[in-house]
């Protein structure tokens, strides 16, 4: 294990820790004063020569949610970098496939020429071996060398740049998959379970490789250009800050994990009546009767079972293209609500509305449900662009009895009408007939009313809430 490099600068170790804590705060992770104090104490207890102890030790006092960890790790690697042991790394790797003895920096100029191509080919061969073996430490070592050899950009006065895309282009690890599959599988194993499992293993190793390359590029860049600059660009938003509208498919899984518990809470909040305590009202007669056994002293009290109110909830959601990321979340939310309450009905619309409750039977799979809605539900009547007015009208007309005095209504959408009729009176009427009504809008508030957004006008007849990310959803749930 590598030791922690002596902290540079005037403040010594304490000052260095201060800088690290500040960077963490700037990345959106709240760190209280008492936590910062605890962090300083950690430095006195862990073995500072064991970098991983320091990493996990500081994480234990500075973090409070699992979603903060990836950001934390990026910053930790910048503030407590592995010491630079390039030569040693190259020496070790030289024992392997590449034995042409390149000095670091020698053959890495960006000139298309025999040497460079050879080097890349050699390293690619070595990489294939490493991916097959799956030794993570060896892969990390390889990644460091690959960045050194293949990742340099044009030298410039502001310092040497390193790019992971250069490394990935030279090695093109994705094209190794076929070769790796052959290596991992026996003859007859193609096509079935074994191949699927092997593919997953390869995916994991490639992901680890990419992460190691990116981490090394950040480390080298920080050494050249200062870590503050790298820290600013390198940190991805926390899962609960990811914009629903901009979520990449990679974010969705994480997002789903962040949203699932919120959905459950939302379901409870929307349905909760005033709590009556643990049990219902005292059942006087039963209590008196029981007290006869203890000489008239009511030792055991009996209560009537608490009345359970069946909540009624109607979810009305825009599933058009403009809210693709959001509607994914929306439908997830609907599924979670359905899991808890039978009294939930879900309706989806684009330019027409259809009931989609049946796709969300408890136990159903969200991904399936989304696909089935696309195929089977009647949500597009005309051209596939949102038409809120028509959608509301169809809803109010075909399911006139769906909304009543015991119904909570939840509308989910961006309120972008494509300059068509917004259908305000219909919505206002639905709101009037319901017990409570809220609209969750995935667009930032400042855009409400801009262009074809009718969000500001809808906001006059219904409680419109900005809900761009999981953090805001959490906020909404608690204020309900």
């Amino acid at each position: 294990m590598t030791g922690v490099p002596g902290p540079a600068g005037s403040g010594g170790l304490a000052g260095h820790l201060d800088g690290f804590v500040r960077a963490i705060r700037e990345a959106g992770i709240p760190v209280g004063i008492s936590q910062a104090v605890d962090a300083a104490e950690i430095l006195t207890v862990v073995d500072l020569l064991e970098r991983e102890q320091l990493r996990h030790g500081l994480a234990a006092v500075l973090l409070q949610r699992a979603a903060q960890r990836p950001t934390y790790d990026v910053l930790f690697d910048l503030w407590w970098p592995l010491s630079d042991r390039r030569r040693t790394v190259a020496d070790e790797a030289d024992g392997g496939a590449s034995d042409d003895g390149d000095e670091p920096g020698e053959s890495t100029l960006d000139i298309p020429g025999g040497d460079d191509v050879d080097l890349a080919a050699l390293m690619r061969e070595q990489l294939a071996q490493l991916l097959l073996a799956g030794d993570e430490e060896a892969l990390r070592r390889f990644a460091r060398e690959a960045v050194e050899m293949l990742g340099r950009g044009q030298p410039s006065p502001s310092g040497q740049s390193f790019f992971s895309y250069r490394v990935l282009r030279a090695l093109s690890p994705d094209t190794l998959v076929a070769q790796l599959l052959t290596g991992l599988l026996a003859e007859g194993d193609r096509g079935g379970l074994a191949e699927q499992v092997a593919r997953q293993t390869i995916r994991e190793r490639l992901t680890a490789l990419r992460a190691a390359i990116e981490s090394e590029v950040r480390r080298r860049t920080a050494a050249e250009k200062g870590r503050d600059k790298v820290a600013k660009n390198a940190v991805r938003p926390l899962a609960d800050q990811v914009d629903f509208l901009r979520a990449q498919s990679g974010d969705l899984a994480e997002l789903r994990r962040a949203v699932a518990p919120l959905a459950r809470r939302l379901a409870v909040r929307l349905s909760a009546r005033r709590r009556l305590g643990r049990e219902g009202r005292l059942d006087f007669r039963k209590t008196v009767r029981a007290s006869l056994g203890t000489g008239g002293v009511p030792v055991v009290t009996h209560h009537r079972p608490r009345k359970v109110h069946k909540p009624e909830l109607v979810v009305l959601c825009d599933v058009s293209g403009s809210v693709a990321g959001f509607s994914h979340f929306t439908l997830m939310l609907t599924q979670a609500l359905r899991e808890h309450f039978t009294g939930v009905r879900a309706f989806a619309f684009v330019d027409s509305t259809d009931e989609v409750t049946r796709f969300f039977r408890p136990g159903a799979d969200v991904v399936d449900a989304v696909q089935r809605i696309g195929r089977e539900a009647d949500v597009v009547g005309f051209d596939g662009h949102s038409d809120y007015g028509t959608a509301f009208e169809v809803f109010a007309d075909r399911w006139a009895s769906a909304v009543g005095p015991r119904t909570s209504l939840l509308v989910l959408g961006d309120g972008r009408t494509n300059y068509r009729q917004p259908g305000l009176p219909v919505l206002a009427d639905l709101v009037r007939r319901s017990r409570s009504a809220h609209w969750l809008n995935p667009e930032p508030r400042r855009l409400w009313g801009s262009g074809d957004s009718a969000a500001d006008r809808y906001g006059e007849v219904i409680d419109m809430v900005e809900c761009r990310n999981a953090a805001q959803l959490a906020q909404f749930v608690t204020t309900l």
Partner: protein
Amino acid sequence: MPRPPSQSPQFSSVADVGKRLSTAGYLPDTQIATTVFLADRLGKPLLVEGPAGTGKTELAKALATATGSELIRLQCYEGLDEARALYEWNYKKQLLRIQASQGTDGADWDTVHDDIFGEEFLLSRPLLTAIRRTEPTVLLIDETDKADIEVEGLLLEVLSDFQVTIPELGTITATRRPMVVLTSNATRELSEALKRRCLYLALDYPSAEREREIVLSRVPDLAPGLAEQLVRTVRALRALELKKSPSISETLDWAQTLLELGLDTLDEAAVRSTLGVVLKHASDQDRAAAELRLN
């Protein structure tokens, strides 16, 4: 924050934690071992958060075994209150005692009062029990997220000064602070205040390598090659984003099942016939069968 009464640390180093937990049947990674070491050194409660079946409860149990402590467990649930968590007066017994005293004249109310609020009528619940113990103790507060918010206030009080005030009896202070482990499935956020008082340990599914070691240590008769195959297959299932991803518990159940059925390879037929052990929802089974090409 006043530091609770100190207790001499149980572990000498992170490596010592790793060694002794392993001996107790729990294989920790560096993160777990380091955080446990710090909780012991700094005398702070350990909050372990993560999905179901990732070894949260087991960690507390192994910790008790490794340190020769008794495990006191407070299982949280919706509606848990002070009377169940801390202490309660045994009012049935009190009532009967009052009744009995009504016959004998002369027993004035004050005597009876002192009497019925004595030790004999006190029902000690896990939190109080843990504080009063003089022998080494691990206090496990399991599934904290299931309890209502109000319980967190109570925990906060008890965990910050390790003392409990019972109006009729006075203040009871721990003579020997227990090691405290709280677990949570993160179905809701615990309060900031409670989190700040604890060291935070996020558990997730283990690396392939560690999971294989766990399988081999818990189901030692399984062939190593099959264990490897099993763990790889479980990881492929976890990548599918199922309603309920298989956890370590399911991996272990699966290993046990394969062993009992005498299966020595995990091919399509073997997976098809045992999938119910790993995936509990019908929709998850269908999905897995399609994605992993079981048919």
